[in-house]
């Protein structure tokens, strides 16, 4: 174990800005990217569902 | 081979009828190069060191100007489709068009570059290397650029897109081309750079018309 306290952990021996700047941006992108990708799918699904509903109403 | 010379002849004839396009690219080159000392300052020593880079970057941009019109007019009037159907292989015809593009945009740059080099106080040896490097490098730019021109044919926002696609691929030409002159100025000798540039040119002569042809066929599907 390298760290005596949480404060020491977040300070990263004075490199906190750089280390957390890297890991933070990485984490943000890796959370946002899957959300955008699955939203792209739910968007197209929504419009497909609307179309199929319209078709159903037409045929009735 | 007759088909190639016929294509070159035709494209040169067309270029002669629309002189303004060729001249615009040439003046663009001159103006861009002349703007740099105004932005940087007139110190001769500094200008001498940055001259090769500036001349080369300006040459890259100037060749980009003509690229968008490499295939577009032929595409618009249906000539390109005739070429695909012609008995001569499309690859040869494409090579002819690339050679014509080089003669109208690359060659004038090569001839003009030493004059601009004098503005930057390059000595005669460096000017000679600059001409040789451009002579090897500008055909390379036309060859690589033709791939981009074929890919963006008839695509919306084609002109800007073309530069985004092609400029990163120009990096090796820029490095070896400008590097040759710099190496000569710093007394290292330009031989290595020039032979690598020639090797790249050989590679591009082999592959680029082929890739351009494939891209054209896709665009015309």
């Amino acid at each position: 174990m390298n760290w005596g306290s949480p404060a020491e952990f977040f300070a990263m021996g004075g490199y906190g800005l750089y280390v957390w700047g890297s890991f933070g941006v990485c984490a943000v992108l890796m959370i946002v990217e899957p959300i955008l990708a699955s939203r792209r799918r739910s968007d197209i699904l929504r419009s497909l569902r609307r179309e199929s509903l319209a078709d159903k109403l037409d045929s009735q | 081979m007759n088909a190639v010379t016929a294509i070159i002849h035709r494209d040169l004839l067309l270029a002669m009828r629309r002189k303004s396009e060729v001249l615009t690219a040439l003046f663009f080159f001159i103006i861009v190069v002349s703007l740099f000392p105004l932005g940087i300052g007139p110190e001769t020593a500094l200008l001498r060191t940055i001259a090769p880079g500036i001349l080369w970057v300006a040459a890259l941009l100037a060749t980009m100007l003509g690229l968008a019109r490499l295939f577009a007019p032929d595409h618009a009037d249906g000539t390109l489709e005739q070429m695909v159907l012609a008995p001569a292989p499309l690859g040869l015809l494409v090579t002819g068009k690339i050679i014509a593009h080089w003669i109208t945009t690359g060659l004038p740059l090569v001839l003009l570059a030493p004059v601009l080099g004098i503005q930057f106080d390059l000595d005669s040896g460096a000017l000679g290397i600059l001409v040789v490097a451009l002579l090897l490098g500008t055909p390379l730019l036309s060859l690589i650029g033709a791939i981009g021109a074929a890919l963006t044919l008839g695509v919306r926002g084609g002109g800007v897109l073309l530069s985004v696609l092609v400029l990163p691929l120009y990096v090796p030409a820029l490095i070896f081309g400008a590097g040759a002159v710099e190496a000569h100025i710093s007394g290292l000798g330009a031989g290595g750079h020039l032979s690598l540039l020639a090797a790249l040119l050989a590679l591009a002569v082999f592959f680029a018309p082929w890739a351009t042809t494939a891209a054209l066929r896709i665009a015309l599907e």
Partner: protein
Amino acid sequence: MSNNKIIHWFKFASPQSFYPLAGKMIPWFWGLTAVFLIPGLWISFFVAPTDFQQGEGYRIIFIHVPAAWMSMFIYLVMATWAGLGLALNTRLSGMMAQALAPTGAIMAFLSLWTGALWGKPMWGAWWVWDARLTSALILFFLYIGFIALQAAIDDARRADKAGAILALVGVVNVPIIYFSVKWWNTLHQGASVSLTKAPTMATTMLWGMLLMALAFWMYSIAVALTRVRAIILEREAHTEWVKELDEVKA
């Protein structure tokens, strides 16, 4: 009946059967991401010792190197899919290439971003014109070009093929660019900063990097599969099988 075997062979190359298959695989790849990421992060922060030269700042390596590896690897995979699409004329290949490109671009961006944040405390500069940094930047440009070209072409089939040619031209060029930038760099920088001579790496550091790289790999597959499912639906919107999907009928 003899036709069935051939159809079976191409089965997973068709968007119709790949769509549900990808749906089943995605949770597994997310699971694998977690399996590698958790011990990877644990080693990165708690097991790997403080570097005697770089202090704690070196811990950026645990995301920087995997991101750089993935940015190159994804480009190769993307070009392979694109080439397969050109050669075999399968629809799925182009969709896979298209799905991979944004992830690859993000990885290239991350490798540049973390590289800058690592460089600032270590060499005192956010950016040095080092061969690797410069070629990573150009790789990022190549991704942007690929994405821009595909976005500009409306016809999906043409976009796939044009993108494929660009990706293949890029693959030929990446080593040439890397070599030329390296040559250029040695000529200009001399022996100021050498990135290649990293201090000998402790085994724990290597393990941490390996686990993080695997986590990034699995993540990339999971995201690309999610995205390819969206692309399949977009492109096949008017086919019968999409209309028959449970999630569409519901």
